[in-house]
């Protein structure tokens, strides 16, 4: 097995890290720089910054935060939120991002994925897919008409996953598996797959759907939404074939440190990266 990346996710509103449930109901956690530095020193393999209100305002406001982070942290930084054009990506890379993650704009204009990956290289372009479980696929033609339920039920071909944009606020009518395949065909270098149903509730990741996507695409899949403990991480890697995990609550609330998590993963047969000094 290849080394599984542990990626702290920092949802940012204004100058603060915030954390919610199902991407809503926000609580202030603290200073992004302080948390990012802590996670870096604990052995984070990458850091994901999400501007949670960017889509609402139509622009990303993380330039200063990213610039400061990139001056101090020598691991890849991925930035998400409100990225709509080649110009937006240029600005974020210039500020110090190594990758950008695109959601809303990619749904509105899928060709942006192609243009951006041709311009900057696929390694730079992550497509974020936020999705919810639906009992049927009527959402394809009747937006807002069916009710989201059954999130605790086991995946079977009768269940469907709808893509949401605008940080979980907007239905799209797109089926998440098909959208993932399309995004990769257009040039996405990685897929960030987040279950809105499970996000923030710490009851474990969506495993079956992650596996379905991860085994179908040729690029790494980062899974997010639901880590409640270290065992959940082990499960989604072993049973869900995730290539990387994005984690927020359990780190922000000090349930576990990244070094302890990596140790637990190693004990359970999941290789993790060691990029500390020469000890």
């Amino acid at each position, binding site marked *: 097995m290849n080394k599984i990346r542990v990626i702290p996710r920092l949802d940012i509103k204004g100058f603060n890290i915030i954390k919610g449930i199902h991407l809503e109901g926000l609580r202030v956690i603290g200073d992004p720089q302080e948390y990012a530095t802590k996670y870096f020193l604990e052995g984070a393999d990458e850091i994901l910054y999400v501007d949670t209100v960017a889509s609402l305002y139509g622009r990303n406001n993380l330039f200063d935060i990213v610039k400061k982070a990139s001056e101090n942290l020598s691991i890849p930084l991925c930035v998400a939120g409100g990225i709509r054009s080649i110009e937006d990506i240029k600005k974020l890379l210039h500020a110090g991002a190594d990758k950008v993650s695109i959601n809303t704009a990619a749904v509105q204009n899928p060709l942006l994925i192609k243009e951006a990956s041709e311009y*900057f290289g696929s390694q730079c372009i992550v497509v974020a897919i936020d999705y919810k479980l639906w009992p049927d696929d009527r959402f394809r033609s009747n937006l807002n008409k069916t009710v989201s339920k059954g999130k605790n039920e086991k995946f079977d071909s009768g269940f469907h996953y709808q893509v949401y944009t605008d940080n979980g606020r907007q239905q799209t009518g797109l089926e998440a598996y098909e959208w993932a395949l399309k995004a990769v065909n257009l040039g996405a270098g990685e897929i960030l797959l987040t279950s809105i149903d499970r996000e923030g509730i710490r009851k474990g990741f969506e495993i079956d759907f992650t596996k379905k996507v991860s085994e179908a695409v040729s690029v790494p899949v980062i899974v997010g939404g639901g880590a409640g403990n270290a065992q959940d991480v082990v499960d989604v890697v072993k049973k869900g074939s995730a290539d990387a995990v994005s984690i927020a609550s359990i780190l922000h609330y000090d349930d576990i440190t990244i070094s302890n998590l990596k140790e637990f993963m190693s004990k359970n047969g999941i290789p993790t990266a*060691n990029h*500390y000094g020469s000890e």
Partner: protein
Amino acid sequence: MAEVVIVDYGCGNIQSLQRALKRVGVSCEYTSNPKTIRQAKKVILPGVGSYSTGMDSLEEMHLSEVIKDYVSSGKPLLGICLGMQLLLDYSEEFGRHKGLGIVHGSVTRFMPNDNSKVPHTGWNSIEIPYGNEIKSWNDQILSSINPGKDYYFVHSYMVKTSKKSNTLAETSYGGNNFSSIIRNNNVYGCQFHPEKSGQIGSQFLENFVNIK
């Protein structure tokens, strides 16, 4: 004059490299000026993107000869990622393309014999090359770095040097062994991104800067 000159041939995002050098306290200049490159004390050839685009840019900007001149002066050069691959004889990325031929060997596509995904994206360890014992690890560029440490990689093509002795460190992915650090006299190359590889990455950059 800056301690390190980074060659600007229009390939890739070098912000993080500049910041990483700054973190280890080294001044750098990003330029395509032939005179500055020839007179530099140390040169880094960075690079992200496709092989042919990289090689074409070097040729169009007349930098291939400049780099070869610099190398023949005996001063240290470090190629990073695509910048390392360009040092080899040729690549098979979208057809066969000639490289700078400064280090003998080839660049070929990963052929994983398991379910490993290509590009190779993420952290992987650098190891003592098979059959090379510990000898390569005595190199100054690996000072204070132990075999088995992890670095950040993003690439679909891999380097193999013709001479075993030109490979200082090897990495394995999808059942393929490739050269992750190479050296031919004063010319070094690394497939990973030291600038994004945490503390152990900074150590590698510092080692390069400290080469006399």
